[in-house]
């Protein structure tokens, strides 16, 4: 990607915001296609991959679940399940077989998808580039198709569940007679439609907006460090060596600090400072990977804040999903 001569910030950002797309009519890889019959392969790939990650984390436990003493991983899964179950019980008061499992899936799937944002912005696209794939967006929730499809599915389930629980007549009455009574039926209906449409839109766009903004900030931070860029061929090497150096320094310091007497713990912050200082010196030498260093520094700072958004958005998506289903089932 960066190999083709000097690269501008604009091109860099645009590159990171371009999907790897498959035209379903011609079965060819395309770029920036505006038609409907186009599949965003990257979003779909990571979304399915992370869905499978959820399945492979939870399914083994479910298959071997015992009512005896739970082992470590089962403990973790049960804590998660219990957490989601508690959330669902708080918000949803009907009996339903699918709401709680769906909440579990939604929370962890969205969480895993959001966590993709914490990978260095260039890591996977560069690896894909090495395999001949031009564009790759690794963060499915930054694709409105993904978030809106989930929220629309939730909306469809709400619709179905509402009819299932309350029947056609109650729903029709609710849609036509509220809030202004029977003489304002058309207005009531329009309001109801707006209300119902706003739910999936806000649900999907909230997640999309948060994650897209987070991703863009990561990309901008990376673009900001572009002028320190080393030649693309050696950037990964210097980046990796810096990473290993930092990891080894931390490990050494950590072992000294926790392996022996208490006074040695002072070495931990000292070692950290040394690593940062060494990195800064490296950072001033543009040819030896300044971009990698500053990007790690900036991205770590933003990433720590972004953790909050990642977990919070996954949680909000789950809670609202349950809340909408609960509203669909309840009589107003």
């Amino acid at each position, binding site marked *: 990607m960066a190999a083709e001569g000097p690269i501008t910030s604009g091109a860099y950002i645009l590159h990171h915001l371009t999907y790897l797309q498959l035209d379903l009519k011609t079965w060819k890889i395309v770029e920036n296609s505006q038609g409907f019959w186009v599949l965003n392969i990257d979003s779909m790939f990571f979304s399915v991959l992370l869905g499978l990650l959820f399945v492979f984390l939870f399914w083994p436990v479910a298959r071997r679940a015992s009512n005896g003493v739970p082992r470590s991983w089962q403990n973790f899964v049960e804590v998660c399940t219990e957490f989601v179950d508690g959330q669902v019980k708080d918000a949803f008061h009907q009996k339903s077989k699918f709401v709680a499992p*769906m909440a*579990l*899936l939604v929370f962890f799937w969205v969480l895993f998808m959001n966590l993709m944002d914490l990978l260095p912005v260039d890591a996977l696209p560069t690896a894909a580039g090495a395999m001949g794939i031009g564009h790759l967006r690794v963060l499915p929730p930054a694709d409105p198709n993904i978030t809106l*499809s989930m929220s629309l599915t939730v909306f469809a389930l709400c619709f179905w569940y509402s009819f299932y629980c309350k029947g056609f007549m109650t729903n029709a009455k609710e849609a036509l007679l509220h809030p202004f009574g029977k003489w304002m039926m058309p207005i009531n209906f329009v309001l109801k439609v707006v209300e119902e449409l706003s739910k999936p839109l806000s649900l999907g766009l909230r997640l999309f907006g948060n994650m897209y903004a987070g991703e863009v900030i990561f990309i901008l931070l990376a673009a900001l460090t572009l002028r320190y860029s080393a030649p693309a061929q050696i950037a990964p090497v210097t980046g990796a060596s810096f990473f290993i150096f930092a990891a080894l320094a931390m490990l050494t310091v950590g072992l000294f600090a926790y392996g022996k007497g208490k006074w040695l713990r002072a070495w931990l912050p000292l070692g950290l400072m040394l690593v940062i200082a060494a990195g800064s010196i490296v950072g001033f030498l543009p040819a030896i990977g300044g971009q990698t260093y500053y990007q790690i520094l900036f991205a770590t700072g933003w990433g720590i804040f972004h953790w909050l958004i990642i977990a919070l958005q996954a949680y909000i998506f789950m809670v609202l999903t349950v809340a909408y289903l609960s509203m669909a089932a309840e009589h107003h």
Partner: protein
Amino acid sequence: MSINATLIAQMLVFLILVWFTMKFIWPPIMKAMEERAKRIADGLEAADRARKELADANTRADDEVRKARAEAAVIIERANQQAGQIVDKARADALLEAAKQKAQAQADIENMAHRARAELRGQVATLAVQGAEKILGREVNAATHKALLDQLVEGI
């Protein structure tokens, strides 16, 4: 931002995953957790029951011990009384026996003394005759002096 077929594909994936979670992941985990909760509740209840039963058993055992102790006290009391009676009786018997034996012995002694006296009396007559013979230097006819001798013997 363009909406395309990804929307539909992701919907399908979502529905499949929801179905899978609903079918294969959620129920076994919840079932295991509920069963464990029940087992723990049962265990706690059983422990409570066992504790109560133990307390009951202790009370019962204490009662038994107390009762046994009272019974033992009664028995010991009775035994003591019996022992006293036996000792008293033995003492009385012994005294009686001793008195009897004493009386017997006295009677024996009396008898023997009597006999000895009778014997001595007989011998005294002979001795007196012999003594008199010696003194007189001649034979004394016992028959002649029988009256005298008898008088003598009577006098001893």
